[in-house]
C-alpha cells in the first residue's frame, strides 16, 4: 500500500515538474530568436551581409552555357574527324587492293 502511494506521489511530482517546465522552454526559445520583421523588405534594401551577390551567379551561368556548347561542338567535330580519317584509310586500302 505504502509502495503504491509512493509511486503515485512520484508520478504526480514528475508530471507536475514536466508541466511546470514545459511552458518555459518555448518562452526561452522565443527570447533567443532574432527580432522578427513584420513587413516585406526589398532585396536591395537588405543589409549587405544578407545580400547574395548576383554577378558570380550570372557569370557562372553564362560561362557554363558557352563552355558546354563549345565542348559539345569540339566533341562532335573530333568524332567526325576520326571517322572521316578511318573512312579515307579504308577506301584507299580498298583501292590499292583492287589495283
Amino acid at each position, binding site marked *: 500500500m505504502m509502495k503504491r502511494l509512493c509511486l503515485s506521489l512520484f508520478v504526480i511530482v514528475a508530471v507536475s515538474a514536466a508541466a511546470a517546465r514545459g511552458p518555459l522552454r518555448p518562452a526561452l526559445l522565443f527570447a533567443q530568436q532574432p527580432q522578427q520583421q513584420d513587413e516585406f523588405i*526589398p*532585396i*536591395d534594401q537588405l543589409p549587405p551581409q544578407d545580400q*547574395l551577390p*548576383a*554577378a558570380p*551567379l*550570372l557569370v*557562372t*551561368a*553564362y560561362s*557554363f*552555357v558557352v563552355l*558546354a*556548347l563549345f565542348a*559539345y*561542338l569540339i566533341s*562532335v*567535330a573530333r*568524332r*567526325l574527324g576520326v*571517322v*572521316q580519317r*578511318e*573512312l579515307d584509310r*579504308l*577506301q584507299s*586500302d*580498298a583501292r590499292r587492293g583492287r589495283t
Partner: protein
Amino acid sequence: MPKWFLPLAIVCGLMFAVAPILIANAPYESTMGLVQKIFYVHLPSALIFLLAAVVCGVASVRYLFGGNPRHDRIAWAAAELVVLFGIITLVTGPLWARKAWGVWWQWDVRLTASLMGWMVAVAYLLLRKYGGPGSDKLAAGLALFGMANVPFIYISVNYWRTIHPTTNVLPTLPVSMGFPVWFTFATFFLLFILLLRMRVRLEEQRAQLDALYLSVDA
C-alpha cells in the same frame, strides 16, 4: 555536309555575337535585378531541350514502325542534344533560383519532371552505347517516355502549386525584354539544327564505315 550548312553556321555565329549585346541592353527586372539576365539563356535552352525530346520521340516512333535507319540516326542525335540543352537548363535554373528564390532546387513538378526527362535521355545514350544488339529498338521505346514527359513539363506549372513562373510570363513580356529572349531562342534553334545535322552526319559516316568493313571482310 549539305549546301545550306555553311551559310547557316555563319548566320548562327553572327547571332551568337549579337545576342550578348541585346541581353546587356535589356532592362533590369524590377525585383530580381541583374541575376534575372540568366533568363535569356535559361528559357531558350529549356525550349530547345523540350524540342529535342520531341524530335527524338517522333524519330523513334517512325523508326519503330517504319524501320528506316535514318530515323534512328536522327533520334540518337536528338537524344544527345536533349542531354546537352537539358544540362544547360538544369544548371542555369538553380543558379538563378539561388538568388531569386533563396534555394538552389525545389522538388516541384516542373523541376522534377525536367530532371526525369534529362535522365531518360541519359539512359537512352547509355543504352545505345552499352546495350548491344537490339538496343536501338529498346532505346526507341525509351524515347517515347521522354517525349510523353514533354507536355507534362510544360503545363505542370499551370496546374500544380510551384514557385516556378507559369507559362503566362513569356507572352506578357515587354518588347524590350521579349525581343532579346526570342532572338536568343532563334540563335539556339539554329545551333540545334546545325548540331543535329552534324551529329546525324557522324552516324551516317559510321554506317558507311561499317558497310566498308563488311565489304572488306567479305
